[in-house]
């Protein structure tokens, strides 16, 4: 008997055919990553939960729009990204700025908070939170989700070249913010 877990691709096809158990498996497989991404983007557990919840409801109701050649993971994160974007716009927190080489990846006027404790990890978390959303999303998708450049480009509706630039700028920004603690 084959005990290999079903791939996302197989489960997506099953869900498209109305198998809600497949949807349940996909939900359990991706829930933590999607929630974690939403939380790191929004920095508010309630908003993050709402965004993640909407993402999975859309997975169920709009699964037909996952096209062949697109991975479910990048599709899910593109939905999650849109949900995050809506919350950011609704709360007028920070608009998602289009990629511009001249735009700083973070606001140098708001240096890392002095309330940070001595742990490097906490400093890093805080520094990531200081990145502007357009950079933060690319950085998180790469570093915490391990997505390829192509997947990030697909999830964020941009090009591979733009993804490379976002990652590079995010890293230089993090380096600048964290240099005093390294």
């Amino acid at each position, binding site marked *: 008997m084959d005990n290999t877990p079903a791939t996302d691709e197989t489960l997506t096809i099953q869900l498209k*055919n*109305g198998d*809600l*158990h497949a*949807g*349940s498996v996909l*939900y359990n497989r991706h*829930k*933590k990553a999607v*929630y*974690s991404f939403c*939380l790191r983007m929004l920095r508010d*557990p309630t908003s993050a*939960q709402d965004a*993640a*919840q909407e993402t*999975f*409801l859309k997975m*169920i*109701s709009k699964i*037909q729009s996952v096209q062949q050649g697109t991975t479910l993971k990048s599709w899910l994160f593109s939905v999650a990204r849109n949900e995050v974007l809506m919350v950011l716009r609704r709360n007028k927190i920070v608009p998602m700025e289009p990629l511009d080489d001249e735009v700083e990846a973070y606001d140098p006027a708001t240096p890392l908070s002095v309330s940070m404790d001595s742990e*490097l*990890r906490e400093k*890093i*978390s805080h520094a*990531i939170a200081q990145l502007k959303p357009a950079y933060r999303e690319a950085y998180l998708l*790469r*570093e*915490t989700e391990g997505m390829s*450049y192509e997947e990030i480009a697909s999830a964020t509706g941009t090009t591979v070249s733009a993804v*490379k630039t976002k*990652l*590079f700028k995010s*890293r*230089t920004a*993090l*380096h600048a913010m*964290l*240099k005093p603690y*390294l």
Partner: protein
Amino acid sequence: MNHENIQQQISQFMDNELPKEQQRELFMHLAECEECREFFVESKRIHDAVHTLVDEPFPADMDRKFSVLRLGNADHPYVAQKMLVSIPSALLTVIAAFLIGFSLLFSFQTLSGPEPDRFQQTFNDHQFFNSQVPLRN
């Protein structure tokens, strides 16, 4: 090669996306340039530390909200479609069962009805005949 180009290469190297040939060039530059080497070491430290970041606890009530997935979600187009199909089907089945039941009952009455009537009529006729015709000696 300027420092910014090198830092871009370092970024791609950390993503395992830098081609081998460029990796060789990168390390040749790093061997010579202290500024870039420092950037590489410190960026690598951040990169490694990011991978040890602990996720926030997952909210337990989110699972409860999604338990509907396991039970079936009426908003799902397929579930809705199945419901749309199944409700009229059930009604049609009930109506058809009634119709078949009535027809069977009617047929049974039609088939079985005339026999006792004819028998009764014959019996009556016989009685009448018997009553009208005097017995012979």
